[in-house]
C-alpha cells in the first residue's frame, strides 16, 4: 500500500471526523448545558439536508441553500425546544429518551409526508466540484477539502463563542450551576432555547454539507446520530474539546479500519474469508473503540462529571 494512498485515507478519515464533530458539538453542548439526551438531533441533520435540497432546486444557489438549511434547522430546534423539550429538563433521562424517540417518528414521517418517499437531489456547486492535486501528487476532491475547512472553521467559531463572548460565559455558567445564573438575572429559558437552536443549526448545516455528496433521504439522520453519540461518549459528555477529539478518533478508526483490517486478516487467512472477517470486524470497530475507552476511562476522555 503506497504512502499516497495512506495519506488520502487519513484525509478521508479527517473529513468524516470533522463532519461528525458538527453533529456531536451540538449534542454535547445541549447535554452539557441542559442535561438533556436528545435522540431527535439526527432529525435536524435531515431537515438541514432536505431544506438545502429544496432551496437549491428552487434557486440554484448552493450558498443560499446552506443558509436556508441553517435557518430552518435552527427554527425547528427553537420550536421543538419551546413546545416539548423545555418540559423535559426536570425529568429523568428516561422520559427524555422516550419523548425524543417519539420526535424522531414525527420528523421522519413528517418529512416523508412533505417531500415524498424518494430521495432528493442536492449536488456540489460547480466551483467546488472535481479533484485538486495536492503536494505529493495526491488527487483529492476539492469539496471534501472544503468540508474539512468549513468544519474546522465552525469548530473555531464555536470555541470563540464559548470562550470569548458574553453568551459563552452564560453557557459555561449554565453547565456548572443553573440556579446561580438564574439568580444572577440571566433569562435561563431564553438561553436554553438559544443553545438548543444553535445545536440544531450545527446539525442542519452538517446535514446540508454532507447531503451534497450523499443521499438526501428520510432516515438519513439516524446512523449519524448513533455515531455522534459514540463520539460524545468517547470524548466525555459536555466537553466540546472531547467531542472534537472523539470525532476525529471515530472518523479515523472507521475509515482506516475498513481498509486495513481486511488487509491485516489476509496475513493469516485465505483471501475471501479475510475480506469477510475483516469487513465484519471493521463494522464493529468504532463500538469496540468506544467500549475500550469507557472501560479504561468510565467518563470518557475529557469527561469531568461522573
Amino acid at each position, binding site marked *: *500500500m*503506497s504512502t*499516497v*494512498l495512506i495519506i*488520502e*485515507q487519513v484525509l*478521508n*478519515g479527517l*473529513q*468524516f471526523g470533522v463532519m461528525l464533530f458538527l453533529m456531536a458539538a451540538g449534542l454535547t453542548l445541549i447535554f452539557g448545558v441542559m442535561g438533556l439526551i436528545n435522540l431527535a438531533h439526527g432529525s435536524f441533520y435531515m431537515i438541514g439536508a432536505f431544506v438545502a435540497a429544496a432551496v437549491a432546486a428552487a434557486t440554484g444557489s448552493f450558498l443560499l441553500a446552506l443558509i436556508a438549511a441553517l435557518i430552518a434547522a435552527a427554527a425547528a430546534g427553537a420550536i421543538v425546544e419551546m413546545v416539548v423539550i423545555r418540559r423535559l429538563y426536570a425529568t429523568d433521562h428516561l422520559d427524555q429518551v422516550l419523548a425524543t424517540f417519539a420526535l424522531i417518528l414525527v420528523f*421522519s*414521517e413528517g418529512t*416523508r409526508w412533505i417531500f415524498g*418517499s*424518494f*430521495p*432528493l*437531489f442536492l*449536488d*456540489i456547486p460547480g466551483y467546488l*466540484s*472535481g*479533484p485538486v492535486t495536492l503536494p505529493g501528487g495526491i*488527487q483529492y*476532491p476539492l*469539496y*471534501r477539502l472544503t468540508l474539512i475547512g468549513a468544519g474546522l472553521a465552525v469548530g473555531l467559531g464555536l470555541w470563540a463563542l464559548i470562550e470569548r463572548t458574553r453568551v459563552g460565559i452564560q453557557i459555561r455558567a449554565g453547565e456548572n450551576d443553573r440556579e446561580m445564573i438564574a439568580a444572577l438575572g440571566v433569562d435561563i429559558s431564553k438561553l436554553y432555547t438559544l443553545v438548543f437552536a444553535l445545536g440544531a443549526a450545527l446539525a442542519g448545516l452538517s446535514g446540508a454539507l*454532507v447531503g*451534497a*455528496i*450523499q*443521499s*438526501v*433521504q*428520510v*432516515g*438519513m439522520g439516524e*446512523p449519524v446520530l448513533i455515531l455522534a453519540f459514540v463520539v460524545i461518549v468517547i470524548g466525555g459528555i459536555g466537553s466540546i474539546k472531547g467531542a472534537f477529539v472523539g470525532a476525529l478518533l471515530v472518523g479515523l478508526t472507521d*475509515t*482506516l479500519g*475498513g*481498509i486495513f483490517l481486511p488487509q491485516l486478516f489476509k496475513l493469516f487467512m485465505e483471501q*475471501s474469508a479475510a*475480506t*469477510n472477517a475483516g*469487513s*465484519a470486524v*471493521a*463494522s464493529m470497530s468504532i463500538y469496540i473503540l468506544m467500549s475500550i475507552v469507557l472501560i479504561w476511562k468510565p467518563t470518557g476522555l475529557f469527561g469531568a462529571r461522573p
Partner: protein
Amino acid sequence: MKKILATTAALAMAASAGMAEVKVGLITTLSGGGAGLGIDVRDGFMLAINQSGRTDVEVVIEDDQRKPDIAVQLSDKMIQSEKVDVLTGIIWSNLAMAVVPAAVNQDVIYLSPNAGPSALAGKGCHKNYYNVAWQNDNLHEAAGAYANSAGYKNSFILAPNYPAGKDALTGYKRFFEGELAGELYTKLGQTDYAAELAQIRASGADSVFFFLPGGMGISFLKQYADSGIDLPVVGPAFSFDQGILQAVGGAALGVVNTSQWNKDIDNPTNAAFVESFQAEYGRLPSLYASQGFDTANLLLSALETASPDDGDAFRAALSAANFNSTRGDFSFGPNNHPVQTIYAREVIKEGDVFTNKIIGVALENHSDAYAAECKM
C-alpha cells in the same frame, strides 16, 4: 373444434361463476426509508388490477415497515384472518426469506414482484412460489456478461457485506472473464465511500462494478463523479432506477446498467403501461412498477383459466405465463423463476428528466444458476 370451444366456454363460465371472490394479500414497504420501492410495486400492481375491470379480485394491502417480524405477522394475518389465496408484494430478500417458506407451506401461492434470494431458487424452491422479477444474481450476471462484451479486462467490484451483496459479486464473477483488480465488501447502510474510492483509484482497474441499492448507490455515484476517477462503471438497474435517478443527477449520466425492463422496450403492452402509469400517477414508471404490473397480469391471466381453489390447475395456469409482459418474452424455468432477456441500458437525459435508454442485449433468454438444484 366446435366442441372444444364450447367446453372452454363452459369452463370459463363455470370458473367465473365459481370464483366470485379471489383474495390477494399484498405486503410491501409503504412507510419509512424504503417506501419508494413498495409504493411503486403497489401502484403498478393496482394499475393492472384496475385496468382488468375485474371486481371479483380483492386486494388487501399492508405495510411491512421493512421489518421482517412485522412482515411475518402480516402474512399470518393474511393467511389466518383474511384467508387470502395469493400473497405478493415483498420487496426485500430478508423479508421474503422470513415470509415465503412458511406461507407456501400453508398452501398459499406466493408471487414475488421483486426479491429473488438464491435459497428459494435452488434447493429451497417450492411449487407454490413464483418469481416474476428475477433471481437475485441475474442482473449482476448480465453486468458481468456486458463487461466482457465491452472489452473490460480488470474490474474493481464492490457490494455491501450482506447476503444479497455476496450474491451480487458472485453473480458478476460467474460471467465476467477478466481479472479482478479488487473486491470489497462495504458496510450495510454506509454513506461515505471516500476510502473505497481511494482504493479504486490506486488499484489500476479498467472498470468498476458495484451493487449498492437505495441511498448507498446515490451516495456512491455522487462521490464517484466528484472523485475525478474516470473509469467506466457498470451496475445492476437498482441504482439507476427512475425513482432515484433524479437524486443522483448528472453523476449517473452515461453509466451502463443492466435491467430486464426499460420504458423504451418496444411492445404494445409496455407502451400502454408507460402511458397509463404516467396518466394515473403523474410520474414515470420504474422497474419496480413494471414488476408489480407484470405480477398482477400474470395472476389475472391464470385466473382466466383456473381458480385458486383448484391448486394444480391454477399452478399450471401460472406456469404457462400466458400474459403480455411489459418486458416482451417471458416464461418460467423449471424452478418457477423467469427466463428472460436482460438488457444493457445507458443513463441519459430527456429534457429535464434523467432516464435510461437500451443500448443492447446483455444476456438473451437467461435463466439462473440454481435451477438445476431445484427438485420440485
